[in-house]
């Protein structure tokens, strides 16, 4: 039986399958080219990019926690101009949708980064990070109020002509309200969840494990929270939902799809198995064959 795994997220963002990579866990894609054929991915979302270079937070930035990890990288990157000049020409060769994750300290910052990315035809979409828990200015501050989410989405919408994904924070009372605010300002899709704010203490040293004390929790530990939020948001909005949070295999990805996600992102699992993304595509394919599914859309939002 012919199987259709392709998904259309709207405004030109078409993926050959629903599997993408989560920003900050997959570098610029090329770091994984020894392990997988990137052409087999639906899309890849490159590391959070800001207007100016950022050094990120002090070491230590990472702590392993039960079935997960905390990170406090703090958006280390060399800035959008460096990305355009040095990295974009190298990674254009992958036959997979390239999405650039964008961050900023003000709505104008976000918009300016998007304006500079707009002429690059290879950038199929931007993912607007209004949910980073590891920076003092901007980041999650915008993603925790409807007004903040709306302001950033509005600014980006005016600056970028192609697909705009707004990445939502789980560190809120009502994620659906934030999603609706982004949708109202012209977001083409929403992705969720970014990391959950967390904290760990080294009791022997009597010190926080991270230099920033708190950080973002990711990995399988957050998956049930993520599935729940995707389910809630998918019921509330009309635009497509991209699900992420602790996905480690095709089965996990299918949970999100059944909860209502059109596409999914794999993050922390890339650190453990650099080939996990392509395996997940194969596992989703196997599942569809076993269950007589001819189009992945048949499974979307069935719960």
């Amino acid at each position, binding site marked *: 039986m012919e199987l259709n795994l392709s998904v259309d997220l709207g405004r030109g963002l078409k993926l050959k399958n629903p599997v993408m990579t989560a920003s900050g866990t997959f570098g610029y894609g090329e770091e994984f080219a020894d392990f997988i054929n990137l052409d087999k991915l639906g899309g890849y979302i490159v590391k959070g990019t800001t207007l100016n270079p950022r050094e990120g937070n002090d070491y230590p*930035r990472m702590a392993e926690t039960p079935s997960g990890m905390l990170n406090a990288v703090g958006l280390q990157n060399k800035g959008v101009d460096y990305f355009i000049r040095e990295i974009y020409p190298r990674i254009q060769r992958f036959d997979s949708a390239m999405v650039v994750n964008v961050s900023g300290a003000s709505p104008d910052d976000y918009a300016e980064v998007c304006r500079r990315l707009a002429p690059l035809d290879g950038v199929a979409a931007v993912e607007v990070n209004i949910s980073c828990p590891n920076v003092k200015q901007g980041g999650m501050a915008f993603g925790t109020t409807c007004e903040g989410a709306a302001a950033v989405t509005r600014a980006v919408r005016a600056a970028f002509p192609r697909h705009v994904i707004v990445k939502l924070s789980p560190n809120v009372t009502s994620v659906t309200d934030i999603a609706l605010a982004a949708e109202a300002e012209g977001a083409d899709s929403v992705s969720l969840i970014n990391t959950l704010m967390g904290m760990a203490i080294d009791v022997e040293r009597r010190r926080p494990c991270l230099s920033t004390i708190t950080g973002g929790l990711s990995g399988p530990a957050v998956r049930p929270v993520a599935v729940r939020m995707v389910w809630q948001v998918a019921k509330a909005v009309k635009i497509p939902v991209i699900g992420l949070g602790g996905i480690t295999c095709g089965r996990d990805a299918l949970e999100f799809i059944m909860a209502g996600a059109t596409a999914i992102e794999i993050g922390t699992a890339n650190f453990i198995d650099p080939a996990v993304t392509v395996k997940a595509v194969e596992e989703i394919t196997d599942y569809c064959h076993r269950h007589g599914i001819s189009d992945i859309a048949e499974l979307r939002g069935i719960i």
Partner: protein
Amino acid sequence: MKKQIIDFRIIDRKMLAGDRYALLKLVVADGSQLPEGIRAGQFAQVDAGCKGVMLRRPISINKIDYATGELWLLVRDAGRGTHAITRLSEGDMLNMVLPLGNTFSYPAAGSKVLLVGGGVGVAPMLQLGIELKAMGTDPVFLLGARSQTDLLELDEFSRTGKVHVTTEDGSMGVRGFVTDHPAMNERYDMVYCCGPAPMMKSVARSARKSGSACEVSLENMMACGLGACLCCVEKTVKGNVCVCTEGPVFNIDQLTWN
């Protein structure tokens, strides 16, 4: 050099220094060749394969022998993940991503070099000594430990080059830290060092004083080992860089140590 995900099989495991370290000898499980071009200083991301441990653990290459197809890892039991790795048995499988990271630099043949290792930091010094010797440079090792019983692989080091020893309790060699050894006062074309951070900083200071070039191997905590997570950063003169890809070996001139 292509990075690979490979299943290895343990063909020998020896516990060292009162069960706190394991020397694992491994071969590629399916009998195929070792990945080509693995060099001293590089490391593997090892799947501990145990409950409650999610991330891989970075372990440096202790020795690689293309003639026998053996790869050696010297592992310190330093936590749940490495504990599980040290408790594996002959015949057990170990999944690794390798080779990762850069290598030590190689001096001209006949150069005067000192290879300083402390604790489990002696691990990469063995392979480095073997490579230097093959290139016509006689390696001189300076190995430090708390006590005689904590000195690791002394037989292997002695077979490879001249060995100086320091112990904190004076049970063997010079009493004190590696920097208390008179060999540390001489000028070298290169001092290589791997060990606990305070030891490396102190060796770096000694090397500066004697006018020796110096390379150190860092072991910052990391998640991916591939330059993607940006967790293992070290402050350098170029800003924060990933130890897993720009290192683990750094010339001390690149670091912001005082």
